[in-house]
């Protein structure tokens, strides 16, 4: 079965049902291993053990952005190629991305409080991340407001494409503006500056989060396909009732 054949919703649901147990198992295993390595990682000389919030904070930030990037690709899929599963992907991904972004904001806030003396500062990176969260909520609200899923998909696709401009802003905010937030240390020109004892658990946690995201995404997509089937059946029921 080729990937393109998965575009058929029914085939997709069947494939998702097959793959999901394996994916969730893999996610659980990688999580367990990553948490174990995170526990072993050394404490920070200044912050002590609170530095380990980083293992939740950084992956969730990355996944929040990855999710919007996925939604952007799905938006192009809807508008340009009219791929049947594109809008299902976008709709399923939005709440997940919002959750990851919220996790990032909350963990970051708790992490920064001892050092900054406040739960929140309006610096460039935090603000652009908050904007991303609000964009997610806006997209979710838009999905729920327009009743017809295919019309909603087009409106949301445009909003997603426009909102994608926030992603590079978040990434480069620590370079462009004077911020309280730490500068880039992993994905930067010249290679990462983090010690491997911290980098490895970080990457493992990221892998675990990604597997979790994919599992949840497939489940949400399956639910959305079933939801649309219910809607079609209801329309049929109403017209048959006479």
């Amino acid at each position, binding site marked *: 079965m080729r990937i393109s054949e998965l575009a058929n919703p029914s085939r997709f649901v069947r494939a998702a049902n097959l793959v999901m147990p394996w994916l969730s198992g893999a996610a659980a295993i990688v999580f367990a291993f990553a948490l174990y390595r995170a526990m072993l990682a050394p404490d920070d000389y200044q912050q002590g053990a609170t530095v380990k919030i980083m293992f939740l904070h950084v992956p969730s930030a990355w996944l929040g952005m990855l999710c919007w990037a996925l939604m952007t690709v799905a938006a192009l899929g809807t508008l340009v190629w009219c791929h049947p599963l594109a809008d299902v992907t976008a709709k399923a991904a939005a709440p997940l991305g919002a959750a990851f972004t919220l996790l990032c904001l909350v963990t970051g806030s708790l992490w920064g409080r001892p050092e900054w003396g406040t739960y929140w500062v309006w610096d460039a990176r935090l603000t652009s991340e908050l904007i991303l969260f609000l964009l997610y909520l806006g997209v979710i609200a838009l999905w729920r407001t327009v*009743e017809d899923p295919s019309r909603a998909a087009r409106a949301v696709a445009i909003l997603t494409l426009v909102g994608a401009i926030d992603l590079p802003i978040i990434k480069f905010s620590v370079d462009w503006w004077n911020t309280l937030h730490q500068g880039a240390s992993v994905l930067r020109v010249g290679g990462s500056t983090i010690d491997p004892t911290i980098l490895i658990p970080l990457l493992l946690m990221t892998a675990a989060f990604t597997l979790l995201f994919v599992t949840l995404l497939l489940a949400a997509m399956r639910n959305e396909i079933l939801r649309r089937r219910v809607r079609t059946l*209801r*329309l049929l*029921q*109403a*017209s048959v*009732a*006479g």
Partner: protein
Amino acid sequence: MRVNAVDLACRRGGRDVFAGVSFQLARGEALAVTGRNGAGKSSLLRIIGGFIRPAGGRLWLDGGDPELSIAEQAHYLGHQDAVKPSLSVAENLHFWTAFFGADARKVQDTLERVGLGAIAALPAAYLSAGQRRRLSIGRLLAVKRPIWLLDEPSSTLDAAGRDRLTDFMKSHLAGGGLILAATHGALGLSGTQELSLDQKIPLPVSGDNLGGGSEAKVGAVTP
């Protein structure tokens, strides 16, 4: 119980719509209000329903509950169906039944009677225009009020729906109800009085109004 109207006149948007409309309607009687578009059929029903004040004339009720106005003892079925799309079919009817103080247990039976029993749990957004009209008619059946004010009630209904409506109207009249209906075609009820508003248009310029106080369709309109 009798609904009496003498010399009712109506003004909408600065325009004299009709004048000199009189009728009497007793229990078990039906009145068909006819006329071309714009003659004021809907306006007359809305005057009786208490939504518009008449520009002149008198409207009163003999009998009935003296504490209540005509509007509070009447059902108004207008062009709009008052159906909320986000509620289910049953929830819509439940609301009106509870709001008008009728017995909520009759909702499912009423839905069966109007042919919507099978889709009671469906969100009302999925209904066609005819089905929404039938849901509104369900309101008239579930809540007992003596006077029915119907504005082109069969307009979105198919043939089966129209037959059902005629049956409902017949049982309402047999039970001592009154019906005033604005309609283009025939109501399908025997013994209906007819009130044609085409003769009730006052002449604007000469100040000499045609169409005096009689309720029969006498005379022709001189333009």
